[in-house]
């Protein structure tokens, strides 16, 4: 082997090692984060909300002094197992497509006599919305590990999906922001917060499958309605009414894009 060839082989080897090491380090950082997530998963404060939610589900409440145990979340009265993984969906009794929170409001009103407007008007994390947080945590825990499976078979479901897609790209407000401004392309981040591309299957699964979640930075449990609400706030939009059709449409858009993915709810976020 000539000297030149020898040097060339050495450089090639060095380059390969450096590249290999870079990937190894990148991979080990990703592994470490995954290990860390596994470690703290057992300490997810969402469980405290779930415990409170189970009580609220089973205990008689409201002016009618009834429990929520007959609430039909789409799989039959009282069936909680796997219900959240199939929402939003069309409900014959209300003749509309509903997400988890709007459906829970229906149940709270019909079974317990709690006026939906009182839930809508309450501030997040206070009074009836505080109860809602707990009940949502309870319900979504029973879909953990289940496949996301929303249907567009009903024409209203299909229409909701199309409207959700249109809403996703709707630019407005003084910043000209739409959901797509931040969540419409891959590999983007705001500051150091990675942004899932909600138009793709992987991005939709990452988002739809991990909310509701406990946010460590604020020490609060956020439902999907609260997450959407704060997105709109940061987009400089006006206030989305709790449980309104735009929130359900966007939920339908994300859920359908995430179909087949696994629910990891309730999640744990920074």
């Amino acid at each position, binding site marked *: 082997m000539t000297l030149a060839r020898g040097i060339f082989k050495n450089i090639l080897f060095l380059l390969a090692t450096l590249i290999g090491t870079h990937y190894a380090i990148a991979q080990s950082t990703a592994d470490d984060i995954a290990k860390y997530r596994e470690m*703290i998963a057992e300490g997810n*404060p969402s*469980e*405290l909300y779930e415990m409170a939610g189970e009580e609220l589900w089973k205990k008689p409440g409201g002016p009618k002094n009834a429990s929520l145990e007959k609430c039909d979340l789409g799989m039959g009265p009282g069936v909680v197992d796997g219900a959240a993984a199939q929402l939003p969906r069309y409900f014959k009794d209300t003749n509309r497509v509903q997400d988890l929170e709007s459906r829970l409001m229906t149940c709270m009103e019909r079974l317990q006599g709690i006026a939906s407007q009182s839930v809508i008007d309450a501030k997040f994390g206070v009074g009836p919305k505080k109860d809602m947080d707990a009940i949502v945590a309870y319900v979504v825990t029973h879909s953990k590990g289940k496949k996301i499976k929303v249907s567009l078979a009903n024409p209203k479901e299909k229409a909701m999906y199309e409207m959700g897609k249109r809403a996703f790209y709707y630019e407005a407000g003084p910043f000209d922001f739409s959901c797509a401004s931040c969540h419409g392309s891959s590999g983007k981040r705001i500051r150091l917060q990675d942004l899932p591309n909600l138009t793709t299957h992987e991005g939709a699964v990452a988002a739809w499958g991990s909310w509701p979640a406990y946010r460590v930075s604020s*020490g609060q449990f956020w439902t999907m309605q609260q997450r959407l609400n704060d997105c709109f706030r940061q987009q400089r939009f006006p206030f989305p009414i709790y449980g309104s059709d735009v929130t359900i449409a966007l939920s339908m858009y994300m859920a359908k894009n995430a179909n087949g993915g696994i629910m990891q709810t309730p999640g744990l976020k920074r």
Partner: protein
Amino acid sequence: MSDPMRIRAAEKDGLVDVKILMKHDMESGQRKDSSGKLIPAWFINSLNVKAQGKDVFNAHFGPAISKDPFLNFKYKGAKGDKIVVNWVDTKGDKRTDETTAT
């Protein structure tokens, strides 16, 4: 009344791994509200864990412990151990919950 804790205890090779999730605001006393006023300190300051009636863990928490604290420790024990967790906070409020080691 204080909110219930979630306690999990699993025995393996003679060691019981105890995981406790507590619901508490744990105000350090250094945060300010939106009007600029200091939010008064209010946090769990003492915690005790007994297994089969014997102390296995004692702690004095300070204002640095964050909201909804998660505690994880191991002790030498056996399946079936009755584990009782008890905490007291700076207002004198307390909470006791128990579980059995699996």
